[in-house]
């Protein structure tokens, strides 16, 4: 059932068995798993079925740390959450991501990769992907080979992309959730506080407000917070009536260890052969699946060098053709062709047509490049983008700012920080890649990232992955949730999403969010049996 908070009687109290707060990747997968189970479920979603500026602005906040995206642009606040613009990239975390690495403070999960593997397989099916295969040998072809390195110092990994529209969870799974007899999805319902009993060990109800001014309460036996890596922490910190520091924050852990995969240009690779095949490392379709390869150090080398994991993305550049293909005119030409083929493309037809006319020179260059070289255009160089999986850092954190949102709630304040180890690891990884490329006779690499580990380049960027603010650790002094995702010290409050990851890891977060949501769903179903 789908209802709107606007239509709920003001100041009334509703009741359910399980309350899921947030209908993004984690919330939707949990609800899907609970469909037609012998208990009632209510999903509270802040937004509606479509994007709305006013709701989105509830995400606004301040940033006092490293340069970061404006917080209201870093995620989406409507049914489906950030899956509404998710790229759909899936690659599992690796064994080493779960291990405690003695050179990386606060590293390690409370369980091994083996525990999550079965859930990854289930997540994979939910994502409607076909081949649970991550080996480059399975995906490479004679036309699109992997780089022939001379050793196993550098590993090639494969990322698979969830097809459209499967990756839009709101769109894909709404019919099933609406039809489920035990599930109520309540839109425009903003949870402003989780209220506990006198002991503070059990959540009794949540306070709900809509932007139009409606207010009501929802009681439940069990609550699951699934509002994303920043909002999960914010909501716990805002729930401070019983505990002034916030719910689950008895050890000052909520909001700490915020992290995101940090990316910047790490190097430029000059191939010895300008027609070297590099398409394996770009998005391309193989076996009916869109994939792309990436590079990284082998776990053994990472251990020997005592580095944090760093992914290496390859961005081939053909100065003339890349500029032409990225031009506004060529993009508009593609949009027009797509529209003529009956595919949806954003933007106005007339505007696209004008762009084409204005940009005929670029279109000419692009067309010539495509006709003459197809996909094997001559390379000028390949940019190597480093994607750093930063060391967990307690000083990198989300707190409550002084500004308030439209509901009177204090906004989030982000202080994103990285460590010298992160910068060193990025540079060292690039250097090792340079040596391996030289060793294999593939070409030479220029390290772009500088030697000063205390500073960061201007092109440093996050990747919209909000991780770690309610991290998982069996020790309440080291984490906010236990290994079953239950908040330490609160018997009926669970957290889903990337905020429970103890570290950024080398895999893609949404894929693990889904796997962890499935695991949590199993745990809760067991509890209600």
């Amino acid at each position, binding site marked *: 059932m789908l209802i709107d908070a606007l239509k709920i009687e003001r100041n009334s109290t509703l009741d359910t068995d399980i309350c899921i707060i947030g209908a993004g990747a984690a919330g939707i997968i949990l609800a899907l798993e609970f469909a037609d189970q012998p208990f009632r479920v209510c999903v509270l979603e802040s937004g509606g079925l479509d994007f709305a500026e006013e709701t989105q602005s509830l995400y606004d906040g301040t940033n006092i740390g490293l340069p970061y995206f404006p917080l209201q642009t870093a995620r989406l606040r409507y049914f489906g959450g950030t899956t509404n613009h998710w790229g759909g990239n899936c690659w599992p975390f690796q064994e080493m991501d779960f291990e405690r690495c003695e050179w990386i403070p606060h590293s390690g999960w409370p369980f091994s990769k083996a525990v999550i593997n079965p859930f990854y397989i289930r997540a994979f099916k939910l994502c409607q992907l076909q081949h649970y295969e991550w080996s480059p040998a399975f995906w490479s072809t004679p036309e699109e080979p992997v780089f022939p390195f001379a050793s196993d110092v550098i590993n090639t990994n494969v990322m698979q992309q969830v097809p459209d529209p499967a990756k839009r969870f709101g769109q894909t799974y709404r019919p099933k959730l609406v039809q489920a007899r035990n599930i109520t999805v309540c839109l425009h319902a903003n949870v402003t506080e989780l209220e506990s009993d006198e002991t503070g060990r059990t959540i009794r109800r949540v306070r709900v407000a809509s932007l139009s001014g409606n207010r009501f309460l929802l009681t439940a036996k069990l609550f699951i917070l699934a509002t994303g890596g920043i909002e999960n922490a914010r909501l716990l910190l805002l729930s401070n009536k019983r505990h002034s520091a916030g719910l689950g924050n008895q050890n000052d852990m909520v909001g700490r260890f915020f992290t995101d995969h940090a990316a910047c240009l790490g190097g430029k690779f*000059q191939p010895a052969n300008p027609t070297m095949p590099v398409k394996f490392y770009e998005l391309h379709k193989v076996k009916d699946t869109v994939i792309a390869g990436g590079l990284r150090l082998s776990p053994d080398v990472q251990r020997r060098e005592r580095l944090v994991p760093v992914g290496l993305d390859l961005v081939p550049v053909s100065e003339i053709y890349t500029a032409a293909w990225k031009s506004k005119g060529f993009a508009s030409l593609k949009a027009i062709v797509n529209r003529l083929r009956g595919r949806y493309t954003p933007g106005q037809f007339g505007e696209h047509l004008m762009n084409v006319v204005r940009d005929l020179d670029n279109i000419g260059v692009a067309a010539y490049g495509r006709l003459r070289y197809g996909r094997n255009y001559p390379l000028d160089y390949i940019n190597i983008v480093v994607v750093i999986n930063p060391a967990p850092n307690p000083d990198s954190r989300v707190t409550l700012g002084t500004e308030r949102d439209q509901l009177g709630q204090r906004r989030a304040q982000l202080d994103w920080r990285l460590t010298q180890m992160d910068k060193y690891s990025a540079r060292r990884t690039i250097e090792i890649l340079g*040596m391996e490329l030289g060793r294999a006779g593939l070409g030479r690499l*220029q390290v772009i990232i500088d030697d000063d580990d205390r500073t960061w380049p201007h092109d440093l960027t996050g990747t919209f992955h909000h991780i770690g603010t309610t991290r998982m650790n069996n020790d309440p002094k080291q984490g906010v949730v236990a290994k079953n995702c239950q908040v330490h010290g609160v018997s009926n409050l669970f957290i889903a999403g990337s905020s429970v990851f103890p570290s950024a890891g080398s895999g893609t977060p949404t894929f693990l969010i889904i796997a962890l949501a499935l695991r949590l769903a199993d745990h809760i179903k067991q509890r209600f049996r």
Partner: protein
Amino acid sequence: MMLTRNSRRRFIISLVGFGCLALGWPRRAWPLFIPRKQAHLLSSTSILPKLLSHTASARIVGREYLQGARHDANLSTFLESLLCIAGYDPMNHTDLEMFRQHVQIRIRRDFEQARVIKIHGWILSLTEARLCALTAFGLPQTWP
């Protein structure tokens, strides 16, 4: 065999020329090191391009290397060892291919054993950097 001044020059040119060719770098890599105009100027006043594809660039890399390793005592013995191992006879053209292959192997081994140097961020093998260094102090600004 004693080398005359001229034959010595020719010898060094050959060495660096084939050494640089042995690096297997594409032409388009070199202009990254130096401004295009400067390369063109040097090229037009020199006979070197006939023998060396990228003498000017090699020289710049070589100078950078020498600045960072002023007291590189190995440089003088480097040349000797390189030739000795390669068994290179400058008068025998069939040896040149063997020599080129030898340099290639040596460069790859450098990378394998982390005998590398960073010049303007480029990760170069010590062998190739030293070959460039030989160009830097082995050749006059203009030729002849």
